[in-house]
């Protein structure tokens, strides 16, 4: 049980479990705080969480976490047992949240392979202070002390096994120990007992034999922990010794009359064990009811590593391509194959269904991400002395796991901005006759192949003049002010270079790092827009695709190269008349379509591809739109529409250089590679000489 047993999977499990528990704890606390009442249920829950973390942290030798959680556990133990009245809830919540933050930081450190070396002593002292203050109000009874001293016991693990007892031991005992239900990690506790007993016994045997094994925990849970021991100590001494351990539900301690049973046990561990198993089955029957409850409580969910899902996703993508390779094989051209086509259709049906299922596995609901915002709202409203209510709508909306990771930060940013800059101070709200408590609404909903995530506040709204003034100062206005629509003005906020640090205080609107939000969202192929009404509020809408992995694409060819354009961004395609083409003095080409002028992009020039088709009348123009930017792409010909599996370019190439206008690549039905165009990246090429 020394450190050599602490291997990677165990650590992973610890990190995973602890972070989940911490998140749960955070939510519990925030809910309790809102009601400024800690229900018994919540206290139990917090106690349980703290206890579990303490146990596993101690097991993994993260002493600072375990001692810290221990102090909180003491605190909640007191709350649970004494049920003191008039608790200062907000201080209590602050305390617990600070602990939560501390553990989060430590877990992050552990994750990064650093030592969890944070100093928890101030927090522990704060907890102790709070506890002692509570105790002053309601004098403690003895019960608080007896059970809560677990960690000193845990510390005794490394006591030497050698002792000076005489070999002729007088007393033989058989003990059956059962632990409290839900005390977790029975095997570790059992190990603890054995270790403690080793000092006072001469010979000791136990069932299950191997308590390091994780299965042992369940066996102990079901059968109890059976120890045979030979000792010089008296019945009372042993009894006392064992009961010192925490969470023992009941203890059977029998003195055996002779060596026989002990010897029998020695000789027949195997038999005993199989007996034990029979016993287990018996007890299983008794516990079926309980286990049934367990399964119905959502144990049908398993956690799978994302890497495996990615692999599955990749393979499914391969299969989709392979299917196309078979059913559209050029060898089949011109053959009448009714049965083959029937079979191929069936295959197609199954593959596309499978693809849907695989995609759905990767879908995660937004609720965890949304729930996290409660904490931010709470902290901010305390700090800024604003009353804020967070409304959450549509948190059950699902998006791809990869995308969730990307939107968490921008969302946090937007919520912060809403509270900090959007909502007015209490006095202002009173003056304008609004509800004192400001509302921030988080909403998610599906819209076609996109998900809209909306952050709305009922604050003072954006001030157009100030935004314009600011933009003028920073020199990022590219258009005449009078020409700009409200929307365009608001979207200035997202331009890089608009936000500066000073603007936080002097500026009535927003703009703190909004360009970071845009960057993050654009990284997953989404877009951000903002709308506002003065004195009524501001709405920020993030539009993100449900999934990144498979898109509908239009394949085009230029020379020998193939490119894929996401179908969603295509407006139309047409063959232009030479007469519609306009060239400006810098030789930039444009085209007039229905009275509107659009820039032209020759793919073969940008990417330096050899092709015979350079005259516009020979090729085709594809008009694409992304984020209100429209360009016409000139290609040789359209090859057809197809669902494609997006693959990223090899890491070697990505490290080498960032290639403008390409978002990845994909495999076509014939096994050749097509490059996926990134429309917003392409639009940046216009008006610039890309050769420089």
């Amino acid at each position, binding site marked *: 049980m020394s450190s050599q047993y602490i291997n990677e999977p165990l650590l992973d499990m610890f990190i995973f479990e602890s972070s989940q528990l911490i998140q749960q704890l955070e939510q519990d606390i925030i809910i309790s705080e809102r009601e400024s009442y800690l229900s018994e249920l919540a206290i139990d829950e917090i106690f349980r969480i703290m206890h579990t973390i303490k146990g596993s942290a101690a097991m993994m030798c993260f002493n600072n976490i375990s001692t810290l959680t221990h102090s909180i556990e003491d605190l909640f133990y007191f709350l649970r047992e004494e049920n003191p009245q008039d608790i200062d809830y907000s201080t209590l919540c602050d305390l617990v949240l600070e602990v939560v933050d501390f553990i989060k930081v430590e877990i992050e450190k552990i994750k990064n392979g650093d030592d969890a070396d944070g100093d928890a002593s101030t927090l522990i002292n704060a907890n102790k202070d709070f506890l002692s203050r509570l105790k002053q109000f309601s004098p403690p009874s003895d019960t608080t002390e007896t059970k809560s001293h677990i960690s000193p016991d845990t510390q005794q693990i490394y006591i030497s096994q050698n002792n000076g007892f005489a070999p002729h031991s007088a007393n033989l005992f058989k003990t059956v120990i059962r632990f409290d239900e839900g005390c977790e990690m029975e095997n570790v506790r059992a190990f603890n007992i054995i270790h403690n007993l080793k000092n006072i016994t001469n010979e000791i045997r136990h069932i299950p034999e191997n308590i390091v094994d994780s299965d042992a925990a369940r066996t102990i849970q079901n059968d109890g922990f059976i120890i045979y021991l030979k000792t010089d100590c008296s019945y009372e001494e042993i009894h006392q010794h064992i009961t010192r351990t925490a969470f023992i539900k009941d203890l059977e301690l029998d003195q055996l009359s002779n060596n026989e049973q002990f010897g029998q046990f020695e000789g027949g561990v195997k038999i005993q064990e199989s007996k034990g198993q029979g016993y287990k089955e018996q007890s299983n029957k008794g516990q079926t009811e309980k286990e049934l409850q367990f399964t119905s409580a959502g144990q049908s969910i398993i956690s799978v590593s994302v890497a495996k899902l990615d692999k599955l996703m990749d393979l499914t993508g*391969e299969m989709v391509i392979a299917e196309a390779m078979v059913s559209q094989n050029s060898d089949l051209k011109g053959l009448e194959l009714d049965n083959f086509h029937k079979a191929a259709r069936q295959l197609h049906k199954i593959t596309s269904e499978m693809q849907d299922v695989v995609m759905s596995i990767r879908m995660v609901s937004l609720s965890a991400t949304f729930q996290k915002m409660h904490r931010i709202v709470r902290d901010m409203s305390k700090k800024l002395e604003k009353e804020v209510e967070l409304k959450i709508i549509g948190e059950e909306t699902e998006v791809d796991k990869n995308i969730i990771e990307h939107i968490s930060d921008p969302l946090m940013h937007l919520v912060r901005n809403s509270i900090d800059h959007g909502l007015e101070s209490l006095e202002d709200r009173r003056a304008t006759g609004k509800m004192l408590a400001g509302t921030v609404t988080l909403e998610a909903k599906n819209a076609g192949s996109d998900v809209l995530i909306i952050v709305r506040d009922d604050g003072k709204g954006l001030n157009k003049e100030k935004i314009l003034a600011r933009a003028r100062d920073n020199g990022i206005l590219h258009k005449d002010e009078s020409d700009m629509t409200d929307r365009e003005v608001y979207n200035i906020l997202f331009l890089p270079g608009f936000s500066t640090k000073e603007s936080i205080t002097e500026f009535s609107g927003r703009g703190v790092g909004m360009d970071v939000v845009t960057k993050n969202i654009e990284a997953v192929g989404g877009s951000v827009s903002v709308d506002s009404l003065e004195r009524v509020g501001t709405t920020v809408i993030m539009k993100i695709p449900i999934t990144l992995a498979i898109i509908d694409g239009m394949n085009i060819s230029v020379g020998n*190269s193939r490119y894929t354009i996401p179908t969603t961004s295509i407006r139309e395609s047409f063959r232009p008349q030479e007469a519609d083409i306009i060239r400006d003095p810098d030789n930039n080409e444009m085209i007039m379509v229905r009275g509107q002028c659009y820039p032209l992009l020759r793919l073969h020039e940008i990417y330096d591809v050899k092709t015979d088709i350079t005259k516009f009348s020979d090729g085709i123009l594809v008009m694409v739109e992304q984020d209100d930017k429209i360009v016409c792409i000139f290609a040789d010909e359209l090859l057809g529409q197809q669902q494609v599996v997006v*693959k990223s370019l090899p890491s070697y190439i990505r490290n080498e250089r960032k290639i403008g206008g390409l978002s990845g690549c994909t495999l076509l039905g014939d096994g050749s590679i097509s490059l996926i165009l990134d429309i917003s990246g392409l639009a940046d090429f216009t008006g610039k000489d890309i050769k420089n």
Partner: protein
Amino acid sequence: MAEITPRELLEQEEDTQKDRFLTFLIGNEFYGIEIRFVTEIIGIQAVTEVPDLPEYIRGIINLRGKIIPVMDVRLRFKKPFREYNDRTCIIVVDIKEVSIGLIVDSVSEVLTIPEQDIVEPPQMNKGFNNRYIKRIGKVGNDVKLILDCEKLLTDSEIDSVSNAI
């Protein structure tokens, strides 16, 4: 326990791969590459060009669903380009978890070159090639230049810096 730990397995595997080199031809020179880097050898196939990359990276290929970049070693060594033919091969190597295909004129054989027959390359101040040659192996009267694969892949930054100076 009679089980073989992964470490031992690795050692065994490394043992069989020790001192073994895949040799290939570029122009008239034989080059060697440590066999542990090599994943497979495939014939030349259609390469999809990727714009905006150094000339020696010819583009990407589809290796059974895995998309990997291919580098023309000839061009990497600043030798003139030669049309690909049916002798041209792509050696797929896996270096530090990066897969890349190396286009070579032709693949020769797998050789065992014992440690004592491998010498440090002579110190020459001129000649950029030297940079990619880790050591030199002697086989009979022939000389095989042993490539430093890691440098082959990562040297471009240094390249551009020294060019800038």
